[in-house]
């Protein structure tokens, strides 16, 4: 078992240039702002003294390479700059928002799986039948709805009309969070599910037609245990990598959805920062989210290897 995880150190090393590239891109964003970056970053607070101080801090009089070096060394000291609206270090703002967004994303992921797995399995047992067509119609329409609009429609139906759920907010305490985050998580799940269902349906149909399922059936295994033990585990493998890739998409979507439901996570932080023209905060959120996606990529590869004994990323590296 363990020898198959030998690829992990190499995989992490491989992610380092990508993480560096991400930081270069985020660094360059401040230079895309029109005019002097210090003036543009400070906006309304651009007094000559403030501009001079920030220019010195960012090293604006030095060559671009030195400025980047300064940016990176600040980064390693946990310094992403000072938020202009909140008068706080960006790092502490980001870290207080991360748990909220992370809870929302994981919640959405769980709901997605709870919805997708039965639907995909149900559709796969009768390809071309009415239930299959219904599930496929959902995957088609589900992807065509703007996410934030799905959120508004859920608010309209379940919060305004039926008044089962709150229209927004985050609540106090864990159970409260789960209650408040249900609609936003469901919103994200509704647009995430079509991708998962498509992949899982196709692989389930393939697994159901394979010889080992025939063998299991002939041994008298049927129903839920056949599905759980023999079908799902094998059918899930291609889906894991699809979920991994789309987790970044889920994070991106959650930023907009947080705005719809007024949830105090990274998304609300970023969008409020955009309206306040608070560039350091925007930069900080973008950097954090991108690095998170890089880490998710590594985790996906590990899970993928653990699930499928036939995948040997350690050896494929060696063979090359």
């Amino acid at each position, binding site marked *: 078992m363990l020898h198959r995880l030998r690829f992990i150190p190499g995989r992490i090393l491989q992610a380092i240039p990508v993480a560096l*590239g991400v930081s270069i891109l985020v660094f360059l964003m401040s230079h*895309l702002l*029109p005019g002097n970056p210090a003036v543009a970053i400070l906006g309304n607070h651009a007094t000559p003294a403030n501009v001079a101080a920030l220019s010195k801090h960012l090293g604006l009089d030095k060559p671009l390479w030195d400025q980047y070096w300064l940016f990176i060394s600040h980064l390693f000291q946990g310094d992403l700059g000072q938020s202009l609206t909140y008068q706080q270090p960006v790092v502490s703002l980001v870290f207080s928002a991360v748990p909220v967004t992370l809870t929302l994303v994981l919640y959405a992921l769980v709901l997605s799986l709870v919805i997708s797995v039965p639907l995909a399995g149900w559709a796969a047992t009768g390809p071309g039948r009415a239930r299959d067509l219904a599930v496929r119609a959902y995957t088609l*329409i589900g*992807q065509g*709805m703007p996410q934030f609009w799905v959120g508004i429609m859920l608010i309209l139906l379940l919060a305004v009309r039926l008044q089962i759920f709150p229209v927004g907010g985050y609540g106090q305490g864990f159970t409260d969070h789960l209650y408040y985050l249900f609609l936003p998580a469901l919103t994200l799940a509704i647009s995430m599910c079509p991708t998962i269902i498509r*992949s899982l349906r196709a692989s389930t149909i393939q697994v159901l037609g394979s010889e080992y399922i025939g063998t299991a059936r002939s041994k008298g295994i049927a129903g839920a245990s056949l599905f759980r033990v023999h079908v799902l585990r094998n059918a899930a493998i291609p889906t894991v990598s699809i979920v991994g890739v789309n987790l970044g998409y889920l994070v991106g979507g959650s930023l907009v959805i947080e705005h719809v439901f007024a949830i105090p996570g990274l998304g609300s932080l970023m969008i409020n920062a955009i309206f306040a023209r608070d560039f350091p905060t925007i930069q900080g959120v*973008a950097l954090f989210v991108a690095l998170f996606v*890089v880490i998710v990529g590594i985790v996906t590869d590990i899970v993928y290897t653990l699930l499928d004994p036939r995948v040997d*990323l350690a050896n494929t590296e060696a063979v090359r």
Partner: protein
Amino acid sequence: MTTTPAPTLAPVKPARRPARARSLRPWYRNGSLVAGMVIVGALILVAVFAPLLTSYSPTTQDLEASLQGPSAAHWLGTDQFGRDVLTRLIWSTRVDLRIGFIAVLIPFVVGTILGGLAGYFGGWLDTIVMRLVDIFFAFPFYVMVIVLVFVLGAGETSIYLAIATVSWVSYAKIVRGEVLVAKQQDYVMAARLGGFSHLKVLARHIGPNVLSQAIIYAMSDIVQDIMAIVTLGYLGLGIAPPTAEWGSMIADGQQFITTHWEQATIPGLAVVVVSLGLSWLGDGLSDLLSPDRRK
């Protein structure tokens, strides 16, 4: 982040009909293609002839007629400024469809060229392009688009540039994969042995065969771009009011959701119709262009 490992269990769906029968089927018997063409064609006609379809202006306010329900004069009612909702819905097709269709062009060209060169020549070029792909891929679509639109300043040009910066990655990935397969084919080997230059082989022999996948993907990419424009409009970062645009219409309608639910609902349905049309068009094209490996 690297690309995901190649699945050992490729989800190959057994073809329901032999590939040959599918490809020989005339295009007008292809249900998805026809449905997609009809919907997208109708929407384009609506966009082009918008001024002829309604007698109201999409922007002129009439505060005495605000927030009316559907009537003979206003089929879908009026918004909070007394503007005819149907008129604004129709005029929005001009903005949202135009930007969606134009936005797809730059990433298509840039991604196809970079992916094609990386796949064909391999080596350090491939390494550089694929690392760039990984870097850009780390930024979720909306994060990158929202930040870039902020940095570049609001407006249509910024939207094009922001979308181009994010979307070229998918084309590069798809085309590179296609080229890696195509360059092993006998006809490409033969062309090289026949003394054709790399450029000629790429343009004449590989290009036409790999482009179909990029074109099929472009259909879903247009949907994604329209979603981005609508989302930006909803957040107030897109096309500035009073121009009619579905996203800002939904944002306006959300304020009156307790009393006038249809205000936020209807523009969203319009987006769903556009996406359905483009998805079917993509499915149909996929049948038509690569009948032997439809997923």
